Structures are given as C-alpha cells and as structure tokens.
C-alpha cells in the first residue's frame, strides 16, 4: 500500500508548502507595553484616537469606507478583538457583521465600552418616512447613527474618559477638555451654517435612515429614505419606491442624498421621476484627512449646498 501513502502525502505537502511559503507570524500586539484599544468603525475610531493620543495603541477594526452595517472580520481581525484590552463599540446593532466576533471577545473576558449607552438614544418617530413593516423602521426602533451629532459625541468622549481611567488606568482628561471645547465649537458652527437655510428647505431624503441625530439636532425634517430602514442591508420594494416619490413631491424636497450602499439605479430612477437632484453624501466614512471635524463640516456643507 505504499503508493497510497504517496497519494496522501502529495496533496498534504502541497498545501502545507503553500501555507508556509508566505507565512507571517501571528498578529502580534505592538511590543511597547501600552494597552490596546480596539474601536469597531472608523468615525468613532478617529475620535478615540484623538482622545487617547499616544497613551495607548488604538486599532480600528473596519477599514475606512467599508459599510459598518455589513463588514465581517477575518480570522486575524477576530484575533485582534479577542486579545484587546478594551473594545469601543457603537452598540444598537450597528456592527451587524461583527456580532459573533464581539460575542467571542466578550466571552474571552475583554472589557467593553458601548457608545450608545452614554447618549440619549433617538427612536424612530411617527410620521417619519415610510412605514415599511420592517421592525428596524417601526416607530420606536432605536437609531444607531449617533456620530452625526457633535453633542452626542461630546457625551461619549466624557464617558469614555472615565472608563479609560477606571478600566485601563489611563488619564486623558487634558485631551478630553480640548475635545469638548472643539466639539462645542463644531456644534455652534454647524448650527450657524444651517440657519442660512429656511425651515421649508430643511427636508431630508437619504439612502437609508442615517441622519436622524443630525436632523434632530439641527431641526431638519426626515421625509423618507430609499431603503426605508436603519440598515443598508434591507432591500427596496416597488411600493416603497412609489410612496417615496409621492412624499418627495408633496414635501417639495429639493435633493435626494445617496450614501454608501444605496442602489444607484433606484436613486436615479426616483430622481428622474421627481425631477429632483441626486447628490452623493458621505455619512459612514471619514474624509482623506481622517478627521471627525472635517467629516462633520463636509457633511453639513454638502447638505446645505444641496438644499439651497
């Protein structure tokens, strides 16, 4: 039977050699004695990085530009999560593809900070957009898109500062003060810019229901969304499309803002039917500078320009 052993060994050897040929050592944590904080998505990550400075290693799980609702971690990403000293997550089901991995990290005893636990959570209100029968869009459903409100981010910064002290023994209160001031200014600036728009123009139609906190803070009306859900994973249906077109016409909305994950053909056809501009809006990713404040300024500016 020795030819059988040869038959067996050959494929195994091929696979093993392939594996060895480009191997890197296991994802090693930086050997600099500092704690490792893992943040799930880029926008929250940039705020945490600025807060922590160089007092700890901050790693962001999702590459910037990936859809936070959908992105799934690889084996090495899961390894980073399960070996972290602290995980900073959004909460409210934002990180859909990371559910199981975050559960594994919890099981491994990793400490967690959940951003949504430290703000006033916005729930879907009556008359908002299209009731689609989806539990995600039902009145009372909790909105996870908290990063579009600088005041909410300030509450998170303050709460995280405390957690970092108690859980990791890191004092970032100096940076926290600076950031609080910056976030206050940001809030004032955006409010002033937005005031240039008359109330009748402040009507939002987006790719999915992602601007709830922004609308609440700066007094915009949420008319509807192409995907009537708090999640990009849902699908648009024919009846929803017709309802949206009618809402746009009735409310005299001036522009539709598409986002990451919005089906392009659907947005174009609604744009053609209603005669309304279709503008691309970045709501889930940081600009090139990687800065939260630039992100918010760009967001506000694009919305204001679109609705003038």
């Amino acid at each position, binding site marked *: 039977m020795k*030819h*059988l052993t*040869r*038959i067996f060994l*050959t*494929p*195994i050897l*091929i*696979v*093993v050699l*392939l*594996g*060895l040929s*480009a*191997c*890197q*050592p*296991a994802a090693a944590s930086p050997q600099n004695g500092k704690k490792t904080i893992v943040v799930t998505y880029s926008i929250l990550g940039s705020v945490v990085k600025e807060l922590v400075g160089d007092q700890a290693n901050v790693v962001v799980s999702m590459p910037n530009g990936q859809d936070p*609702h*959908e992105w799934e971690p*690889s*084996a*090495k990403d*899961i*390894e980073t999560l*399960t070996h972290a000293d602290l995980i900073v997550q959004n909460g409210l089901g934002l990180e*859909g*593809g990371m*559910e*199981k*991995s975050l*559960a*594994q990290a919890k*099981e*491994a005893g990793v400490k967690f900070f959940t951003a949504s636990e430290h703000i006033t959570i916005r729930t879907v209100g009556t008359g908002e957009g299209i009731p*689609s*029968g*989806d*539990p*995600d*869009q039902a009145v009372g459903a909790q909105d996870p898109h908290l990063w579009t409100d600088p005041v909410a981010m300030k509450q998170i910064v303050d709460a995280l500062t405390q957690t970092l002290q108690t859980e990791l023994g890191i004092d970032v209160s100096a940076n926290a003060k600076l950031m609080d001031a910056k976030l206050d200014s940001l809030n004032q600036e955006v409010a002033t810019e937005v005031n240039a728009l008359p109330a009748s123009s402040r009507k939002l139609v987006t790719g999915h229901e992602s601007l709830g906190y922004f609308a609440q803070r700066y007094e915009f009306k949420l008319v509807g969304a192409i*995907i*009537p*859900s708090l*999640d990009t*994973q*849902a*699908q648009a249906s024919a009846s929803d499309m017709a309802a949206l077109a009618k809402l746009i016409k009735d409310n005299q909305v001036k522009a539709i803002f598409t986002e990451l994950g919005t089906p392009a053909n659907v947005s174009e056809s609604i744009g053609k039917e209603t005669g309304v501009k279709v503008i691309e809006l970045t709501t889930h990713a940081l600009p090139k500078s990687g800065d939260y404040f630039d992100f918010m300024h760009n967001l506000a500016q694009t919305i204001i320009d679109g609705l003038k």
Partner: protein
Amino acid sequence: MDVLIQPFLSNTFMLRALIAGMLVSVSCGVVGTFIVLRGLAFIGDALAHGVLPGIAVAILLGIPGIVGAAVSAVVMIGGISLITNKSTLSSDTAIGLLFVGMLALGVVIVSRSTTFSGDLVRILFGEILGINAQSVILQAVATLAIILTAIVCARPFLLLCFSPEQAQVSGFSSKLYHNIMLTMIAVAVIISFQTVGTMLVFGMLLAPAGAAALLAKRMHTMMIYASLIGMVSVYSGLLVSYQFNIAAGSAIVLVATLIFFAVLLIKNLQLARSRQKGVPDHD
C-alpha cells in the same frame, strides 16, 4: 512548524472552529460515502438548498436555525415520497421540484423581511469562526448519532450500496433503509450549515468521499479516508484563511476540492505508468 499550530493555540475561536470542522468532516465523510456509492448527489444538493426556507422562518421567529432546517428537511423528504408514491414521476423529477420550490419559497421569505441580506450570506456560506460552545456540543451529538446509525445499519447499507437485489432477498426493506440514509444526509446538512453554510456543505459531502472512492474499494475504508481527507481540508483551510485573510468556509471546501483533483491526477498518472510498463491493472 510553529506557524502551523500557533493560530490554534493562541485563539479559542480558531480551536473551536477546528473542532467543529473535524466533527463536520466525520459526519460528511460517513454520509458522503453513501451519497457517492448510491448516486444520491442530487438529493443531497436538494436538501442542502431546501433547508433555506426553514432556516429563514426560524430566524424570523427567533428560534434556532437548526430547528427550522430540520423541519424543512422533513418537508422535503416527505414531499419527495409523496410525489413518487402518488404518481409515476421518477424520483429525480420529484427531487428537482421540491428543490426549486423550496428554494424559491426561501427567497420569497427572505425578500419580504428587510432585515435579512447579511444573514442570508452567512446562512449560505457559514460562519465557522463564530461558532459557540453550544453548537460544537450539538454537532458532537449529531456526529455520534450518525456514526452509531452507520454501525447499526452497516449490513443493510452495504447491501443497498453494492447489490440492492440481495438486500430485498436478505429481508431488508430497501425503502426503510433508503429513508434512513436520507435522514442521515439531512442531519449532516443541518448540523453543517453553521460551519460551512448550506451552499458549501455539499462540497464537504462530495469532495472527500469522491477522493476516497478513488482510493478505497470497501465501504468502511472509504468512510475513514473521506473523514481523514475532510479533516486535512478543515485544518489547511482554516490555516490558509488565517494567513491570507480568506473566507474560512470557502477555503476549507476549496482545499477539499483541490485534494480530490490531486488524487484524481495521481491515480491517473499511476494507471498510465503501469500500463506503459505492461503491468496489468491492479488496485
């Protein structure tokens, strides 16, 4: 060499995935052997896809996907029996009908709920890196059940595979044992969808058993080889997934398929060589 073991030693989730994968290899090795020997590939594929509506409904209702999958499988097997009993249609027509009907039903259910798409991908392709301890225990129990059934029914299964006429003569109801076999396939599909997903479990059923069929002529040897090849695929696939950031479930099935083709190639080369030398073919 350390690089081959380190990922599993320093990560509980990798070790758990490995164990779950090993269990799947054994169940699929045993059941896959029957599929290859009895030509049941079509119904195996039908079951793998037909469990979709059951899983979809289960997720909507908040009950474990496995329960839904089990119900789907029962409906499918029952439906196939019904059609073949109440009509003169051949079994592959019956299988095809149930296959397509249930798959369509699954898609309709999924498209009605707007919260589904990401989950659908995970159902189809599995989430072996996200397996929890409970699932592993469930798989161990199911694998044990499959092994025990195979041992208890060894003789009738053997006859069914190699000489169905003799099975009747020996007093075994071929209908009964055929249904037991189908149930085993259903169980293997159901417990494996969490690791490699419903689309890929079929690969784990066919590729290792197919390669084993090229290497062994006796049923129990085939099962052992199929399980071993499956295990090697799981181990290598997980390692490759870790090193190269590739989806784990797909990596495993890809390795299993490559092993099959490697074995096929080597076998044919050996045959060609022994013919050249003028040596009579022997296995």
